């Protein structure tokens, strides 16, 4: 069976179409799945082998970036979500999608309803639209396989991306997969290389298994031949490879 990726979107999501284009370029089939259709039962998440929650301003980011989307996920779609996560299916949250995953407690610890990481306003208190460099920490995750140590260039565009957690490291065995870095490839706190001022230069983290990834910058905007960089395509290609190998 050809694996199909669910691109889960809601009112206010605005990066779903380019996410589909990037997946297509990586040779993956995808479907746009409206959150409302999961709620009505018209569509079920278990039809899909992986999922991406794309960027945007879901529900206008009212009450907090990604919060209403997350509240609906953990309250009304609890069982479908648990089944999906337990099945070990890859899940990627990009930008607002990352905010949704942290607000839902899916990252860092895969514990829906228990928040352990927040993405708060950038240090500049502004929306920051920039090209950033990300150094890949390790290649333990299906998303980063073979990319350890690589520096990837891609656009970043958000106002709330500064990772905040209690204690020495994000909980639940989560790992930092992507860090903002300077032109020499060194992780940095320096603005604007690190546009949010995120501590430890955190740009993206995974859960302990590496299957669930949250990333503030936008790999889908660096995936096509017309883009200024095609580094982001590596992540989607990795997903395609993972399907081939598993």
């Amino acid at each position, binding site marked *: 069976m050809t694996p199909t990726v669910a691109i889960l979107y809601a009112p206010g999501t605005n990066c779903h179409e380019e996410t589909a284009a990037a997946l297509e370029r990586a040779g993956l089939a995808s479907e746009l799945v409206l959150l409302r259709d999961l709620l009505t039962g018209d569509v079920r998440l278990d039809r899909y082998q992986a999922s991406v929650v794309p960027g945007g301003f879901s529900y206008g980011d009212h009450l907090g970036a990604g919060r209403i989307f997350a509240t609906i996920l953990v309250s009304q779609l609890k069982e479908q979500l648990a089944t999906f996560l337990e099945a070990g299916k890859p899940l990627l949250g990009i930008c607002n999608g990352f905010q949704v995953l942290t607000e839902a407690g899916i990252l860092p610890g895969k514990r829906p309803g228990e*928040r352990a990481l927040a993405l708060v*306003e950038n240090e500049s208190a502004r929306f920051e639209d920039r090209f950033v460099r990300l150094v890949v920490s390790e290649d333990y995750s299906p998303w980063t396989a073979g990319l350890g140590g690589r520096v990837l260039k891609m656009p970043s565009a958000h106002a709330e991306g500064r990772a905040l957690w209690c204690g020495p490291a994000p909980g639940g065995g989560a790992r930092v997969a992507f860090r903002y870095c300077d032109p020499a490839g060194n992780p940095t706190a320096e603005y604007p290389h690190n546009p949010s001022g995120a501590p430890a230069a955190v740009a993206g983290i995974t859960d302990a298994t590496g299957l669930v990834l949250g990333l503030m910058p936008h790999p889908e905007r660096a995936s096509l031949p017309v883009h200024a960089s095609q580094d982001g395509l590596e992540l989607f290609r990795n997903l395609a490879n993972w399907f081939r190998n598993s």
Partner: protein
Amino acid sequence: MAISCIYTVSRDDAEARNWLRFLRHHGYGDLSTLVIERVFWLEGAVDVRSLLPLVANPLYQAGSEHSMLDPGAGPIVEIAYRPAVTDPETPSILAGARALGQDRLEFARLSRRYQFGGLTAARAREAAGRFLYNPVVERVREPDEVWATLRPTGRPDPVRSISLAGLSEGDLCALSQERSWYAPLAQMRVIQAHETRQARPHTDAEIEILVQSWSDHCYHTTWKSLGLLKQLSQATADINHPLVVSAFKDNAGGMEFYEGWVVTVKGETHNFPSSIAPFGGISTKHGGVIRDTLGFGKGAYPVGGTTVMGTMDPRLAEQDVPAGALHPRLIVSESIRGTAYYVNPMGIPMMHPLYRTHPRYAKCFALGHSFGLIPKQYAIKETPQPGDIALLIGGETGRDGIHGATASSAGMTGETLSRESAAVQIGHPITERKFTTAIPVLRDAGLIRSITDLGAGGISSAAGEMAEKTGVELDLDCVPLKDRSLTAWEILLSESQERMLLAVAPENLVQAQAILDRYEVAHAAIGRFTSSRRFEASWQGQKVVDLEMSFLWAACPIEPVEVREPKRRVEPLRLPTLKTREEWSAAVHGVLGHYHCADQSPAGSRFDSTVQGRTVVGPYGGRDHRMPTNLAVSAPLRGKPYGLVTTVAFNPFYGDADPRVCAQLMVIEAITKAVVAGVDYREMVLCDNFYTPRLRPETAWDLREMVAAIAELSRALGVPFISGKDSSSGTFEAAGRRIDVPPTLAVATMGRVPDVSRVVTKEFKRAGNRLLLLGRSDGGGLGGSVYADLNGQRGDRLFEGYDASSIRQLWDLLLALRRERQYVSGAAIAEGGTLLRVFEASLGSGLGARIELAPGAAGTTTGQDATSFAKEEHFFGEFVGSVLLEIEPDVRLDALKVPYRWLGEVISQAEIMLTEGGSEVLRESLADLEESWAKTFREVVG
């Protein structure tokens, strides 16, 4: 019903920090701390504690049933929506509560409590009043106030008849003023005569519809009286361009793209609201022009936009700001916030963020463009058929924006600032985003007969225009309201944002409603189209409007306008000659640090430029993405190499020296910027936006000259205008002082290229390459220039290097050179002259340049007088139409048939070096230059 509260405070509140910085920057230097506490007001039998996770993330927010502010820490001002108004957040709170199983929450509101450390209570209130709320929909909630219910309450005024019978000229004028109609006497008289003919007084709603429809903003009375409206459309008709799909008849203009797609362009100004309430004015400027794209044909999808601002100098001393006008620093910073607030959530890439100044922009220039994409089969809308449903979609109708059309057609006075702030709308991008997703789905399902946006004049304007040929019957009780106190004429005139009107065949209604429900877009059938040729509306059981369409659309009197050539107070330039190295250095740093040339990324980087994944070239490019590109390239069809290329030209200085030539230069500059990148001018269209002072014989002269000049040029070039907008209200009056804006024209181009990989950008490519200035570079280049402005001068003439045939010759040569890949980087000369382009190309590459100032010494000069011009002009001259090209050393250019000059070469050192006859005049490191260039705007934005 029980009302309970949850208070939340963020522990690490960047928003509060940002406001603290902002307020300290804008007159409240004594403000020491600012804390924001949000209050969620909840009505219904609800378990308050269970909602805590929804309103507060414990990682960085504290939530409590009691206020967490220490009353001793400073005065607290609480801002809430007015009782008659629905909060924009209410539906989200209700949806979140439902998700948590709290079905008994019946209504919710949100208020914000600001605690101002270091200010007196009176100053705290003043600061809040100036910046933190909009009195049209919000207010200060007093501490002792008790809410009986959170639901919107309020009662509308009844409909009134207003008889004009027997009123004298003076009475008519007074009434027009008093009711904020701003209708000229001639219009009042026509309405008076109509009353006699129909033998009944008009209702207030009818007169409101008439004066709104006949306002300059909607009816373009100024342009019509000068015979201008037809000039551009006639030129376009004469050109008969094969790529033009729709010009000057729809909400935007459309040009054929590739593979059955059409691209659209529209530019819209929002000068009046942006001058009195910049945040709301700018956000709704974007909302409005985006809806023009959605209202093109049967609904185009927005794929890019611009924000173009002209204000007074933001560094102006407080006392130099005209009384009654906002400080330009505030207008600029609030406009940036407004653009980010609206455009980012819309998910539309910013293509051209542009900020300019002029000492006479007391009433600012606020322009935004929107570019769209639509299948050609849907590019032409149909006429509504009798029986079609008038389906209103999007936001609810409120008190915001009433009288926007008439007020914005009038001049602005010190008094306007307070009196007409009701005319400024409030934008909620999430609402517009929802129907932006839904409209293409409705369109592709064949459910839209016609669609238009609600902008100036609201339902009155949209329904009136859509039903011009048929007729319409509206039931105003069906219009969803967010403000219960609206009376009939207010419902008709409200300019509440985020609404569109659709004509849907009755058999398609159910399917259309199902699609709208799926995308959570509110909708209401508010009437039907008829064959009566009348505009009819009822409200609360009464017929409140019954007007013949023929009267509404044909009776507006167009008064003749007196036109007189102005006596221009212009003086020839008297610029000092730069002698020493220090003088050259100061001049170079001065030009690069000039507001018009400086790094504007502190604004531009707050807008998403890559969303939609279509961006090929955004506002900033080159190494590290810091170089302004002056060009936007998008690949709108996913998986295809086709490029949509856009440029903008806007220079407020040129109009001072010569409005006619200024207008021509804007057209030439905008087109050249795209041609040098490799876009064929034969596959390009134009959009014009004029902003001129209120009508006087002299300003009418200038306007007429400008329009005639570009119509003639467009026709001669074969490059058609397909969309445009005019505003003739650029006058500010206060304390006996009248300030007219400079005659302003902004021109945008939209072109297509078959392969985006062939577009050439301007960063230098390799050291050792030669630099060529192709085109004329003699005579008049410093007129209206940035360099002259630094010397406090404009000059009495502008660069007039090209007529239509010589600029076409240059463009043809450029395209031929580009086809043969004879140049590897290129940029059009504009403000800041050759210097700015050389600097930017260096910045974008990390390479430097050596430039020879003495003409002839570095190479050949042909076709122009080499002896008569100054070195300053060589480097700072704004030779609009000419281009800077980078040529590889082994490329042999055959005898060029246009004037050109070898300037020098690209060097590997990151520096700019000027020589004269080979000996060094100046050598500046790129890093030093960059510092001057980068600091100007940063200081303004704070």
